[in-house]
């Protein structure tokens, strides 16, 4: 009897050990990544929040005094951060809407009207902007649209702009730069979503006597929702916080929140103000995107990107 029961516990621990090993595998696999992100992404974000609650000045250093009042002072102080914040959201939302309007037909064309042989070629033409540094591209617009630039000279010649009228340093030039720089981020996810649509669904709509327009609005558009959402996520986040387009293509009337954060950090060295502005920006963006996700009803947001 002892001989019969003796091996049993050994086997049980063996199984238990194997079960434990299988249970531990995913944790061991993701250990390095989670540690890296926790230490170099999550902790900095939280410490950014803490920095915003500090008081002090660049010369004597900053101390944590739990100064929550800074979030009120930001919007009542002499610098109109509220205006900058609103302006950034207006620019970002306008640019996002424009990229959707431009990107959807492009993605649609590549997904449905081009034979598979040519799809990747046509996509590469769209992606070609990524082969050139973002700063250089924006700089080139600065030179092209500037006073002596070929585009502004052309517009003057055909009397679309008056002599002395500048295209640069206007909301239009800043938003245009944003649209230009982020267009591909909208085209790609919409294209991926359109490409995933089962052709049989369109055939079914066709068989059920749906007109082209109703097939488009009641089959294609709803099914591409996830792609549009992913695109909005990428473009809106990028454009609202962006300091580059507004500093290269803008002027003092197009000052944005991204520039304010940079300025507070590097020029004024008001670390607490910069951190508070970053926190406000992130919270507002989070609210906007969360509300949008709720309204549109996107589940599994993380699967989209």
């Amino acid at each position, binding site marked *: 009897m002892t001989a019969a029961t003796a091996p049993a516990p050994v086997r049980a621990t063996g199984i238990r050990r194997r079960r434990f090993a299988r249970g531990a595998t*995913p944790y061991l696999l*993701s250990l390095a*990544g989670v540690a890296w992100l926790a230490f170099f992404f999550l902790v900095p*974000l939280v410490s950014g929040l803490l920095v915003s609650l500090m008081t002090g000045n660049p010369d004597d250093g900053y101390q944590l005094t739990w100064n929550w009042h800074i979030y009120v002072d930001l919007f009542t102080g002499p610098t109109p951060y509220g205006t900058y914040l609103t302006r950034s959201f207006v620019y970002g939302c306008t640019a996002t809407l424009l990229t959707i309007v431009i990107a959807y037909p492009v993605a649609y064309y590549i997904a449905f009207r081009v034979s598979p042989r040519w799809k990747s070629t046509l996509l*590469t033409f769209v992606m070609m902007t990524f082969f050139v*540094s973002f700063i250089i591209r924006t700089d080139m617009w600065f030179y092209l649209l500037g006073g002596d630039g070929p585009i502004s000279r052309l517009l003057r010649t055909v009397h679309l702009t008056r002599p002395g009228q500048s295209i640069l340093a206007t909301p239009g030039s800043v938003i245009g730069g944003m649209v230009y720089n982020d267009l591909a981020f909208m085209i790609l996810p919409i294209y991926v979503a359109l490409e995933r649509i089962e*052709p049989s669904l369109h055939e079914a709509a066709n068989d059920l006597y749906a007109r082209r327009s109703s097939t488009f609005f009641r089959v294609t558009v709803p099914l591409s929702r996830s792609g549009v959402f992913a695109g909005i996520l990428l473009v809106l986040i*990028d454009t609202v916080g962006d300091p580059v387009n507004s500093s290269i293509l803008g002027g003092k009337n197009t000052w944005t929140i991204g520039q304010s954060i940079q300025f507070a950090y590097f020029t004024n060295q008001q670390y607490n103000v910069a951190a508070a502005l970053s926190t406000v920006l992130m919270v507002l963006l989070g609210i906007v995107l969360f509300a949008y996700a709720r309204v549109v009803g996107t589940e599994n947001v*993380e699967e989209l990107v």
Partner: protein
Amino acid sequence: MTTSVREPWVANAPLAPGEIPDRRPRPRPALPIFYWIVVGFLLIPIVAMVAYSVNGASRNAITPVWKGFTFTWYAHLFDVEGIGDAFFTSILVAVLSGTLSIVIGLPMAMALARHRFWGRGLISSLLFADIAAPSIVVGSSSLAFFLSLNLSMGLGTILIVHVAFNIAYVVAALRARLSGMGTQLEQAAGDLGAGPFVAFWKVTLPLLVPGLLAAFLLAFALSIDDYVITSFINGSRQTFPLFAYGFTKKGMAPQVLCFGTIVFVVAAIVAVLTGLLNRRRL
């Protein structure tokens, strides 16, 4: 070219008795025209970059006015102080951070794609937040963090932060590949007596090579083009985007555009070659 187009309405609607189907769809040029206009718009600054890199300006800054063709700036490519250092720093950071984020991200993608476990959703949310956090916030809070640690900024901090923002994209790309691959081949390897490590090494990894390459290129592109985040944590170390930005308002050195053109040409050649390879495989 139009034979295998999967346009929604090529299927014929149910026909009325005696109706002759119209086989030839009427031409609809609006979409292709729109597409090419958009591509033209996207190309404008690239054409300008190439043109200004061979424009013979009198002083060492580009002018928007055409002054005649010259290769001078290509001949004096490294004559701007610091341009070579900035360029090679960018390449180095992109290669290292791309490699490192794959080394860290691949096991994570395996865990997320192949296992169900407690905390999986949490990790997904963390990755999502990593992609969703605005660059300016990531950059400024990383700076605050490194300052509070009294870490000196430079190549090290640039690398750390680049890996941190690359991981999420690399994991997303690899996870999609792994899910698409399915597990049958790994199971078959297991049935034939291979342990999980052998199965991974001999079956999964070779199948994943195109995915790894794509993920690396994505990380490389994100890293080499990053300006906003790097501008906070670079210390005195210049990367190419930071270097180019320094010229913006004081007048662009044409050599910067020469480097831009060279990178563009190399990338275009790589794209054409991979395109040709893929086409042969189709």
